[in-house]
């Protein structure tokens, strides 16, 4: 019996909603980055590491889709590339209330540039209800400027259907012929 494992990676700055988004679709209670600071690891095996948020979708007995959320605050220290191996796509969440969302977009698309070239990116803009500018059209233009083709959606990371839409867009972008 073999198990197939695939990854979807959620990235973006602190507070963009990565943890919440993973939580919205994960089958398990997610393991959070900030739990490292607690005594969680002490009670577990020595090799337990929580360098990122982790969730899981189980598809029957033999297929698993692992959901990883990068720690948003680790801008320079984080080894972005170690997460992407085995990944089928990247979901970039950007917080529209942050001072410079364009800079955020540029940073994260650059950090994952090799992966994006090979796989697929989907962008979710959070907190657009609190801050209407920049708008979706601005993000579309910025992506064009960066020569990146990716769907951009307004999302509420707490809303399962919004997060599901991001994953749907990711899967259909990889293969529009997928049927349900």
């Amino acid at each position, binding site marked *: *019996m*073999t*198990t*197939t*494992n*695939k*990854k979807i990676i959620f990235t973006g700055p602190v507070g963009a909603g990565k943890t919440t988004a993973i939580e919205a*679709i*994960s089958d*398990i*209670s997610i393991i959070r*980055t900030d739990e490292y600071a607690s005594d969680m690891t002490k009670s577990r*095996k020595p*090799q337990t*590491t*929580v*360098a990122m948020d*982790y969730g*899981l979708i*189980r*598809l*029957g007995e033999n*297929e698993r889709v692992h959901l990883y959320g990068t*720690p948003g605050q*680790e801008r320079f*220290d*984080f*080894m972005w*590339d*170690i997460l992407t*191996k*085995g990944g*089928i796509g990247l979901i970039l969440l950007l917080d529209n209330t942050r001072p410079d969302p364009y800079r955020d977009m540029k940073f994260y698309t650059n950090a994952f540039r*090799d992966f994006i*070239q*090979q*796989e697929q990116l989907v962008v979710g803009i959070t907190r657009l209800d609190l801050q*209407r500018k920049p*708008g979706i059209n601005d993000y579309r233009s910025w992506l064009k400027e*960066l*020569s*990146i*083709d990716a*769907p*951009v*959606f*307004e999302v509420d990371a707490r809303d*399962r*259907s919004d997060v*599901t*839409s991001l994953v*749907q*867009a990711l899967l*259909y*972008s*990889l*293969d*529009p*012929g*997928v049927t349900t």
Partner: protein
Amino acid sequence: MLNSSNNPLKVALLSISPHNRAILEFFFAGSGKSIFQIVAIKEAEALVVDFDHPGARQEWEENIRVNPVPAIVLSVKECDVENTVWVPKPLTSQALVQSAEQIRQVLPDTTYSVDSAAGAEKQRTASDMSSLRELLDSQQKDKQVFGLSGWQQRERAKVAPSFASAGVAYEADDSAASVVAESGDGIAPADEQLIGTDDVYVPEPLSDNEVLPGAGSLQLGQVTTPDESEQDQEKQQQRWDLLCGQATQRVTAANWQESTQLYTPENYLLNSLIDALNLSRTSKQYVQVILDSGNYMLLMPDVNLAYSSIDLYSELFTDVCGTPLQGGKVKLHLPSTTELSELEEVVVQDARQTYDMEGLIWTTSLLTSHGRLSRNADLSSPLRLKSWPNLTRLEQFPDAMPIAALWHEKAGNVFDLSEWLDVPQRHVIAFFNGAHTLGLFEVDQGEAEQEKQAAPKKNRGLFSRLLKRLLGGGKK
């Protein structure tokens, strides 16, 4: 100290923050397992030091006085200190692997002191390391400047097969953390050894205790469709019928102009709304679209919102959109400052009827066209969707996602798309009408001809099962 490539380099972490330690441990437990092993300082062949950490340099100096081993220095600033290898931040696994090789070069070589049995093992592992180096070299060669046109063509087939796209399966293991690569001849290719085997690394524990309460008993429809009663389904279908029409017969490029399923946008409210949208975007002012009944829409370009005095989901709005208007029944108006403050009050008090501006245009376009093609549409050239519509804030109907994905990837017309995807043509026409009104299409500049045959899609079965799961129809 040993310098033998058949053993991982024994390293001790010094002055590393808890987060960075976790990241490094993640790497060392996964893809870097054969390269690094974390040990106590006394046993270490080398140190890994984060020079950006407060007091790191001092701590490192104190340590090397007692135990003078080389160090891998992590820092944003270049570090040129004897007996160290600098790894610049942001860290990459490739840079770390290379630093291990550099450290090995400065360690005394004891490779040949091992016995013959170990020698065979060494030979195998040395071969692994050579593959590793080849892989690293190939990764270097494969690197392209970000944003080359090839990227847009998505010629994934040309890219070295990735771990994911190769559809590698893994042997089942009770421990979710140890996922083992599987290959035909028993030895996984170098890239899988490096990046595949343990990269799907799962933080422990993953016991059933951690499954969300009730998650195991999720049934069809419970996930994304809370209202699954027959009545709701019926309502949903009725709405889709309004947005997409009910035509089942397919028209073709040859006969669509003779079809009865045509409409003239200029005769409807939609036309005035598009004029208003253009005016508001160019003038950057609020524009009011006033109907002779006194109802109105207000477009607010600075916040990308629109207010409608008629509920978008009401029968009245459907009627207004679907009824041809006589000249003079709609006027565009630029509100004065006084009027604006009054309108602002109305909008605030009736926020329920404030919509995403694209959402208002999209719904109006769909209700107007009702699955029909515009009589004036130019369908002779293949079109490409230049940007996806903001589908999370637009009214959805079946097949909108795959239509968007394919039309973004491949240029074609409405007839091609429905054929390629084998979906009802009315869904494609509805999508075309909505996205075209929003200005999201561009005429293809001959790229369609040059597009190569799409590579066979991998993971389709898994994607399909995942979609079913997410949409509420899949089993766990």
